[in-house]
């Protein structure tokens, strides 16, 4: 068991690094949101980023795609230093993201939303090609039949799909997914899991933040656990789920109760 897990881990480690965070830190006033964090996303892999509320997961996404620069550390993507690069330039490098709170352009159609993604993505496509890329991305997430629908008319699940389709339209090498399963019903969740696998199989690496643990554990090749902005653990889903520090962060400290018992 342990040996095969180790072998699997070594196999992943031997892959090519696509995104590298090197000792990245970010502070907001008195809060150290991200604390000396290093992590690697390899080509073709799904890396799950998990941790309790307030662990710093979304901040990590914002540091990668340039919403704000890190105070310290370096972000490297496909061997290029992208630390502090503006979001639109990061998108040009080949990183696309979704947002936890969906951000559709409500008045535009599904196709036009995705076309915007294609125009501002990795390649500066002319409109016709951008539309073709947009339609293909919409098809991939199962919105192919709703290209002409106004985005605001989509259901929650539909808007989640659109968020992914617009990111995919940018033809990224790396896709950052921020809680794409939140608020979906069980059937929609299963469909979305299938879609995420399909995207990875098309050769796009994925870094995903997800609270639905059953899903993130089954989808991820590797997992990084954040707690209080720092890396608490990393490894295969199995290794992480068995890690005592992770169990303590999620289930609570068992020694607190013992201490309370002995003091009262």
């Amino acid at each position, binding site marked *: 068991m342990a040996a095969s897990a180790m072998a699997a881990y070594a196999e992943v480690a031997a892959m090519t690094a696509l995104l590298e965070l090197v000792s990245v830190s970010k502070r907001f006033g008195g809060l150290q949101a991200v604390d000396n964090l290093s992590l690697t996303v390899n080509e073709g892999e799904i890396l799950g980023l998990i941790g*309790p*509320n307030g662990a710093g997961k979304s901040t990590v996404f914002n540091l990668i795609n340039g919403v704000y620069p890190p105070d310290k550390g370096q972000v490297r993507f496909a061997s290029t230093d992208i630390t502090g690069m503006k979001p639109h330039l990061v998108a040009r490098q080949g990183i696309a993201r979704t947002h936890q709170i969906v951000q559709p352009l409500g008045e535009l159609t599904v196709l036009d939303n995705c076309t915007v993604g294609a125009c501002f993505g990795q390649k500066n496509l002319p409109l016709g090609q951008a539309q073709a890329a947009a339609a293909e991305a919409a098809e991939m997430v199962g919105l192919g039949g709703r290209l002409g629908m106004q985005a605001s008319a989509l*259901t*929650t699940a539909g808007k989640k799909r659109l968020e992914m389709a617009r990111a995919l339209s940018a033809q990224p090498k790396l896709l950052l997914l921020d809680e794409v399963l*939140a*608020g979906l*019903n*069980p059937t929609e969740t299963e469909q979305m899991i299938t879609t995420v696998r399909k995207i990875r199989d098309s050769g796009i690496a994925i870094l995903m933040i997800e*609270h*639905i*643990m*059953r*899903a*993130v*554990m*089954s989808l991820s090749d590797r997992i990084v656990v954040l707690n209080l902005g720092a890396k608490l653990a990393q490894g295969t*889903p*199995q290794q*992480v*789920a068995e890690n005592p520090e*992770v*169990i303590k962060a*999620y*289930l*609570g*400290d*068992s020694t*607190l*109760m013992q*201490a*309370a*018992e002995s*003091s*009262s």
Partner: protein
Amino acid sequence: MSDLLLQAENLEAGYDGVQVLWGMSLKVERGTMTTLLGANGAGKTTTLRAVTGALRPSAGRVMFRGEDVTALSAHAKAARGLVLVPEGRQLFTDMTVQENLELGAYSPRAREYFKRQIEQVYELFPRLKERRSQKAGTFSGGEQQMLAIARGLMAVPEILIIDELSLGLAPVVVQQLVVTLKALKAAGVTVLLVEQNLHLALALCDYAYVIAEGRPFLEGPCAEVAAKPEIRQAYLGL
């Protein structure tokens, strides 16, 4: 034998098109302490909000003392004795202990029993009596927690529903919570407790529900639930 006080059946609820509960059910018997456990985002607070009336469920029902109270407002439920101690305590920090307790006794029924109730509360928590003129904001975290629970008791609850009091609090405050909850248990108060620290909740309560992805995942007497390996699965997915 059993005296069913509160029953939630197949609750569905959510916010702004994002559904959180997908058929959540639970029961609380009079005189017991029941805990609702689960990972972040599993739907614990939403369950409490749907039960207490802060959020109207889109499906399912809430039975309280044999009456369907699903459609009642939060204050109407509170007046019937379904009382919530909210997450983050929500004390009136510029007011004294005594004033906070008086505000807990807001409903006509609670006002009727005010004298009896405040004596009992001060007996249960002598520390609050000693400091009755002190402003709540000057209290330590542990004392504020005790006051939040005491204020809930002033509403003359049939059941006290307590949401994540130890959230983000220092270990010493968590230990204080243990003392406070033991006092409630000794006084025979019926409690539904949401608590982040699973070990603490399972050690103090009688019965546990574990919620995952908005529906029941596991339930049973706390000692049995504590021994089940599946509980880790509810939090960690594996």
